[in-house]
């Protein structure tokens, strides 16, 4: 099979979108803001493309990682000061 024909076939099977296009659409896909037909095309591509499946999974892992970043705890003196303000507010 010629390289050209192989490329065309792959493209067709992969939902008619390139991997480069697909990764641009990932957030739209994850946000659930795609139309039904766009979603189907996206999923067909994923079905054929290990690279894009991995990339999608990496994005999900990235989101999970960001979600686990710890926040700084409130310093004791700031907490005490704000509680003092709350007491004053309560009286006022």
């Amino acid at each position: 099979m010629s390289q050209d024909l192989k490329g065309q076939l792959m493209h067709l099977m992969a939902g008619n979108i390139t991997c480069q296009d697909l990764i641009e659409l990932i957030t739209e896909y994850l946000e659930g803001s795609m139309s039904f037909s766009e979603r189907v095309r996206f999923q067909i591509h994923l079905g054929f493309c290990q690279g894009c499946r991995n990339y999608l999974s990496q994005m999900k892992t990235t989101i999970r990682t960001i979600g686990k970043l710890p926040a700084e705890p409130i310093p004791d003196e700031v907490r005490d000061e704000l509680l003092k303000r709350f007491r004053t507010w309560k009286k006022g």
Partner: protein
Amino acid sequence: MKEEDTAQSALSSKHKWADEQTLVSALREGDEGAFGFLLDTYHGPLLRLAMAHVPSRAVAEEVVQETWQGVLESLPRFEGRSSLKTWMFRILTNRAKTRGQRERRYESLDSGDGQSDGDGEGWREPDRFIQAGSLAGHWSSLPSMWDEETPERLLLSKESRALIQQAISALPPVQRQVITLRDIDELDAKEVCNILEVTETNQRVLLHRARSRVRKIIEQQLEEKRPTG
């Protein structure tokens, strides 16, 4: 990871203040335990969001102080149309904007469509794709599969954690605000649009760019850590 444990337990649904109505009534009645819970749960996230808005930590700390003052002043008028968290984040965002404008260093979306966020094309990775021929646009090197434990493993390392935090800090301000609210504070898209006054499309574009950049940093981290030889 003591800090995280504290935040986790404070946010646990088993906590007596987990029900927001109970919490709000207790606050209005002047219950110090309720306010203490609010401080423990939200001071850190408020500071993080403030730092995404203003250029220095000192100013961010002041903005958070003003926000707490604003929360106390407005609490009697809180109607519960949004969650308490969204409401507080909105108070903070308004204060930060006023503050930033005063200092003339605030970068907002006012003068654009949200595409012009000073980011350029740095979040794209064109070199990962075949450039020409019938396979143009397909992967030139396949992304690898990351294992399930990646977040935990990465965040255990102080160095990796710092690098991810730096990657977020280095994002253009509006991207940083969106990713902080969406992926760290776990607000939904509508709430974020409401707080930052951006359209849903802008929100999504900004989020996509921000996540793509952080993904790239994580990938670099993992590649450096991969045993060689």
